[in-house]
């Protein structure tokens, strides 16, 4: 046993005293996870969870002509423009999300706005049609509504900005429609009653000139009676911490390389003749193999543990508050690190045992690591792959990353994840060991 531990310790010592290797194993994934995490989160700005898109260059063209209702002039187009480009104190309101979200410019020519989107000056153009106010207003002669849609002209070069501008515009117009529908439904109902009930009809006809109904609440978002509480799969209020998701995925991605390269060191040692020397010593082959694979396992565990530690520091620095981003149950986090490392080492052992040369291991191992990384969310949110995301389940990385994400949210139901990882690890470890034992004819 002490020989196995000695060999494993030597592997660990060689790895963690090599500064260049540390650059690849620790600094690179740490830098990458920080970049991806920052790109996909608003945490640097203070804890938001949305995509941190701000100052979207937007052109607004108001072709709307004001209309009259009950003696008052309405210009819904201008109201929409004012929401995007407020004046006075409102223009300095730091809490105005719309103001932060967009950098709106008022244009008078729709074609110029479209051309601005075509050439990249604007990410989107909002073009309010000429009959917009009229389409939202009822008259005694026309009690129906037929909302003239606002045009949102977008470019595929900025799909996220485009979808945000479209959603924002849709929300605002929807509020206007709510107001318009309220007015239309109420007036329509009263007119119908007036036609059916002559007494009321006469009084209504006489008094309506001075009647000032308060429809204003229907035009404000505060009147919306239904709210949506967004939650994650784990019943948490949707808090997407990209540093956890991408950090764990990057750690696992680079750990697969470590596992494969650690196992590959056997083939390099055989080529260099040091393995033959080791076998010539009073040490059994099984002891050597177990020592090597245990060393690989230790390398992986230490690498992921170090990465998690440093990622946590990055999380603290970026958010400005003390926290453990991996959740409270560090024992389970350690268990997943161990199980994930075991699975990775087992796969590394099988790949190395099957390959003939260290170069073959590099080629096949690189492809396997890339597949595992792509389908475990190391480079983008896995769910953006739609149906293809199911391929992730064939990778140990997916099960480990999923477990880390759940643990970070305070969920501990990760038995399946642990079982899958341990089974992959145990099976591949034994197969790798068996194949090596048979092939170790030096």
């Amino acid at each position: 046993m002490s020989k196995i531990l000695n060999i494993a310790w030597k592997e660990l010592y060689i790895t963690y005293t090599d500064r260049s290797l540390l650059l690849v194993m620790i600094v690179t994934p740490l830098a990458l996870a920080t970049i991806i995490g920052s790109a996909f989160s608003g945490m640097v700005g203070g804890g938001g969870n949305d995509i941190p898109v701000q100052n979207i260059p937007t052109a607004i063209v108001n072709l709307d002509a004001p209309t009259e209702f009950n003696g008052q002039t309405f210009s819904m187009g201008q109201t929409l423009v004012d929401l995007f480009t407020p004046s006075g104190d409102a223009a300095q309101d730091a809490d105005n999300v719309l103001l932060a979200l967009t950098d709106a410019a008022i244009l008078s020519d729709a074609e110029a706005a479209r051309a601005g989107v075509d050439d990249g000056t604007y990410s989107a153009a909002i073009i309010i049609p000429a009959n917009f106010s009229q389409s939202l207003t009822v008259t005694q002669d026309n009690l129906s509504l037929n909302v003239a849609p606002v045009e949102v002209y977008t470019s595929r070069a900025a799909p996220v900005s485009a979808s945000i501008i479209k959603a924002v515009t849709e929300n605002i117009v929807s509020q206007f429609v709510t107001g318009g529908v309220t007015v239309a439904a109420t007036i329509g109902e009263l007119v119908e009653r007036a036609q059916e009930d002559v007494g009321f009809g006469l009084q209504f006809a006489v008094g309506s000139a001075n009647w000032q109904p308060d429809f204003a609440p229907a035009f404000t978002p505060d009147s919306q009676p239904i709210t949506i509480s967004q939650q994650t799969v784990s019943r948490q209020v949707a808090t997407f911490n990209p540093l956890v998701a991408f950090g764990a995925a990057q750690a696992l991605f680079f750990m697969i390389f470590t596992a494969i390269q650690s196992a590959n060191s056997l083939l390099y040692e055989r080529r260099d003749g040091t393995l033959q020397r080791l076998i010539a010593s009073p040490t059994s082959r099984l002891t050597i193999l177990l020592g090597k694979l245990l060393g690989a396992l230790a390398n992986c565990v230490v690498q992921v543990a170090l990465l998690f530690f440093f990622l946590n520091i990055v999380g603290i620095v970026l958010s400005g508050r003390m926290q453990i981003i991996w959740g409270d149950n560090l024992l389970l986090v350690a268990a997943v690190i161990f199980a994930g490392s075991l699975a990775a080492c087992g796969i590394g052992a099988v790949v190395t045992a099957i390959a003939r040369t260290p170069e073959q291991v590099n080629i096949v191992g690189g492809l396997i690591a890339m597949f595992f990384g792509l389908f475990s969310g190391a480079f983008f949110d896995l769910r953006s792959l739609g149906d293809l995301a199911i391929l992730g389940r064939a990778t140990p990385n997916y099960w480990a990353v999923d477990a880390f994400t759940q643990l970070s949210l305070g969920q501990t139901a990760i038995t399946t994840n642990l079982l899958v990882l341990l089974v992959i690890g145990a099976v591949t470890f034994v197969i790798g060991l068996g194949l090596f034992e048979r092939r170790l004819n030096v």
Partner: protein
Amino acid sequence: MRKIWAIARNDLRIIFREKDIWINLIVIPVILSFVIGYANGAGRVASAPEAPDVIIDVIDGDGSATSQEFLAALRAANPNFVLCPADNDDGDRCELGGAAFDAALAETRLRDQTALALLDIPAGFGTDLAAGQNVEIIYRSNENATAPSFILQAVQVSVQRLGASIVAERVGTAAALTAPGLTLDEGEQAALKSDIRSRASDLLAAQSSYVNEVVSETAGTQTNPGSGGFSQSTPGMASMYVMFAVFPAAVAFMTERQQGTLQRLVTMPITRWQLLGGKLLARFLLGMLQYSIVFAFGYLVLGVRFGNDPLALLLTMIVFTLCITALTLALATLLRSEAQASAVTLLLTLTLAPLGGAWWPLEIVPDWMRTLGHVSPVAWAMDSYTSLIFYNGSLATVLPYIGVLAGMAAVCFAFGVARFRIE
């Protein structure tokens, strides 16, 4: 020039002797261009909203007419939504497999992604709304957290539609009761409320859409409308793999210096400039080959169109590759060993690429990251490709980006040449 070419040719011969070169030049960049383009929206834009049977589980704890009205609005928002278990049929569209639907099963189905989203409508939803109280619907999803969700958007639209009729009922009734000559008892008031809401629902149902999205039909998107994600990933992955192809020259310099082959070469009748020129030319050509392979794949397979100015495209490719080649030379003068060179170049490639927008469009990152990203030559190259592919850019429009890349290349070359030592 003949000597430079001879050195370059020899280096290329050595490079192409390596077994994994074609995997790095073709297989990996091509796969990455496809998968990352798909993730960046090519797949989603083309298929998600039209995908058959988007399963959404619904726990309707209320079961009232109002909750049914909301669910009907949701079905109307996207005909491909299958609201389970209500919409299950003999063909088991809900994929229930005969199991009884309950909260625990819904939880499992959401976790294993049988259902993409779960809606929880609380008990008392209808009566609370009728009593003038506000209510909350719980939406749990399995969707991409980094992109706008088409299911959530549909839920929001449906909530707004139902909410609008309720707002009309509440605000409209209050306003109507102030109408001159209208005196109603409690029962008549209730009837008025109901009539206004019903009228509002009819009016809302008659509206088609509030916003009409028109997507710009500029170059690069005309031929294949779903190629937006690929139009981003193809130049992005190509630029990253140009770095993977060229940066190893720094490692090769270390290796040759250690093995003494560099020293041997300078004893030959060639100048230091010819030696450097030959070595760098080999890597430059490899970088251009890398670009050509990925761009050809993008054009022929992914349907990416590169704009209307091939000269501007070619110049961007050349100047970016030149810039990376010059950066490699500069790096080679700062590094001391093969291992160090391998590690540093890997770190640089994997940070400069995402920072510069090779993995995702820079429009989604915060302003400070966008500014920081332009430290990377990749950002300037991507600016140029974006202009050409999406905005019908010409040589005149991309000249500033090419100019910056050329400037970076000049600085790195000057630094590298001044510091480069054979020993």
